């Protein structure tokens, strides 16, 4: 019974961890709520990664190192998939979470983010990050967004 709860807890922690990380991305924030996005990237990221680590701790306790590692890696994939589907079809389910985040932001933090609605994104390439947002990670070896060749059809993107 305890093992079942730990497994469920681990999955939920992964899901919530990814949800917090999704809230740091402008696109997903706008899908979820109309409120302005507070400048809470660091806190959200630390919280997100912390929950993923907690997810591992739970399966480690319930199933030991080798089964735990497999459960964790596969659980992460499944949780992230579930989150992506939530964002695609039922983004409003995450609204309470977003509101908790925006309410817990220190007063005036929202103002740090210049505008709730970003200017329309350029048709191709990568949108410039708003001043408040942190740069998004790029894989090593990929061209930096600015220097991207204009189009690399058709397999690119």
């Amino acid at each position, binding site marked *: 019974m305890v093992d079942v709860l730990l497994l469920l807890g681990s999955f939920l922690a992964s899901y919530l961890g990814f949800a917090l990380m999704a809230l740091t991305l402008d696109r997903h924030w706008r899908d979820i709520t109309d409120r302005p996005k507070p400048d809470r990237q660091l806190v959200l990221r630390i919280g997100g990664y912390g929950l993923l680590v907690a997810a591992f701790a739970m399966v480690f306790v319930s199933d030991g190192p080798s089964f735990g590692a497999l459960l964790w890696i*596969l659980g992460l994939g499944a949780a992230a998939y579930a989150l*992506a589907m939530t964002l695609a079809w039922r983004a409003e389910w995450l609204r309470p979470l977003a509101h908790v985040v925006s309410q817990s932001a220190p007063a005036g933090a929202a103002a740090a983010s210049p505008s709730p609605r970003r200017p329309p994104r350029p048709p191709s390439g990568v949108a410039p990050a708003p001043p408040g947002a942190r740069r998004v990670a790029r894989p090593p070896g990929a061209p930096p967004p600015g220097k991207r060749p204009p189009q690399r059809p058709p*397999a690119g993107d």
Partner: protein
Amino acid sequence: MAWLHTWAGVVIGSLLFIIFWMGSLSVFDREIDRWMMPDTRFHAPESIHLDGLADDITALAPGSPQWGITLPTERAPMGRIFYQDTSGTFQRKYANLETGTFIPDQGTRAGTGFLYPFHYSLHIRWKGVGYWLVGLAALAMMALLVTGVIIHSRIFIDFFTFRPKKKLPRSTLDLHNLSGVLFLPFHFMIAFSGLVIFMNIYFPQGPNLAYGDTDVPRSEFFADIYGRYSRDKAEAPGPEDTASLDVMLAQSEAAWEGTPASFVRVWHPGDANSYFEVRRSGARTVHYPRQVFYYDLASGDVINEYSDSSPAVHTQRFLSGMHFILYDHWVLRWFYFVAGIAGCILIATGFVYWMETRRKKHEKMGLKGVRIVHGLTIGSVTGILVATLAFFVINRLLPLNTEFLGLSRAALEIAVFYLVWVATFAHAFFRPSRAWLEQTWVIAGLSVLAFVLNGLTTGDHLFRSISEGLWAVAGMDLMLLFSAVVAALMARRLQKKQTSEPVPIKQAAAAPSPAPRVPKPEVAHG
């Protein structure tokens, strides 16, 4: 990078999809067996009795140099017996090891005998070409995963993004990136461990290097890594009263701290030098153990014992155990299935995206190959799903002991699988514009048909299988229903898009025509 990703994907994609599809099914191969072999739908026995059955098997196989039994588990409640008949060919038989009775031949190769070998050998026996093709596909998969992350670099900005309402190429690419990145560690691991499992096939010269100074490098190598032991026949009859198999089995399991044995074998039955082999099962660990006891059958004494301990062997066993999932863990088993299906989605969406972004250009260029690529893709994506379902349906339609044109029942089922598969390729080639849609409808229809036929022909309809706790049967039926629903939803969406889309005038002239819009017809197949 883009070049490698595209070409490896297009050339090997069909093969990869087939391997991933069959692999995903193999996760539940024993459950599929239960569904396809109605007489083996019972609960695993509490205790098993080998001694009584041993005489029956010896009577069945006089002069057989060996016989063995794969012991029952929760997932496969019957014992699987093998022996050699007088002509030396291997025969198989199922038995209930609690009552010691044989189960009539079920006339099917089912999951473990057909779908699972398809996954790793493609059933191409000739010169082991099947294994090499699968190895090539595994290698390509790893290359595709790495290049994919690099060329689809937007995934890090669009993380978690799936826009089903956007146009086909966009939503397909979203799904492609999502499935690729989120299960990347798993897909990489599964491709890599697949290669490690067949190390003896891909690196046949290994033993010669390490054991080159011995007379028989290969068998020395196998003795070391698998604990293979053998003792010659004495050519003299053994004693009337041999040691009890059940006692030796219990002794072995006690030595393994209660971990059950998975397999037992009697060598040289009836001979004075006859001996008994007991292998430990991998039910409790990820690592697939190789621990074996050999007993002298006359006295019941241990004559040889093997336990893998070298780090290299242990690593190989861990990787292969991770791939085989012979351990008992239902949550992980389902995760493997989901990740496998995600792999199918990854490959299929990659294909659809590639085709859709180029189709118009290629048509303008007047390339005849477009239609062939189109046909190959549809046939190897929806086609193999249709063929698999036809395999299930025909299994429920043919009476036991059917024979036709000299083919046994098991061979007939397989013939139907291949005939239907070939038909889907032909269908895709001749009706390129409608093939996705029509085959998706066929998938929905066949799923429902298989579900209904199981209830009608075996009486184990959903209510009964659930109330009696036959979870393998219930699970298979539920997955069939689930796939029917998803396929029907998919097909309806396709239909809406296809009818609402204005057909370009040019296309009235028959030939390759409009956009088939199925991003993921395979999504729910189980």
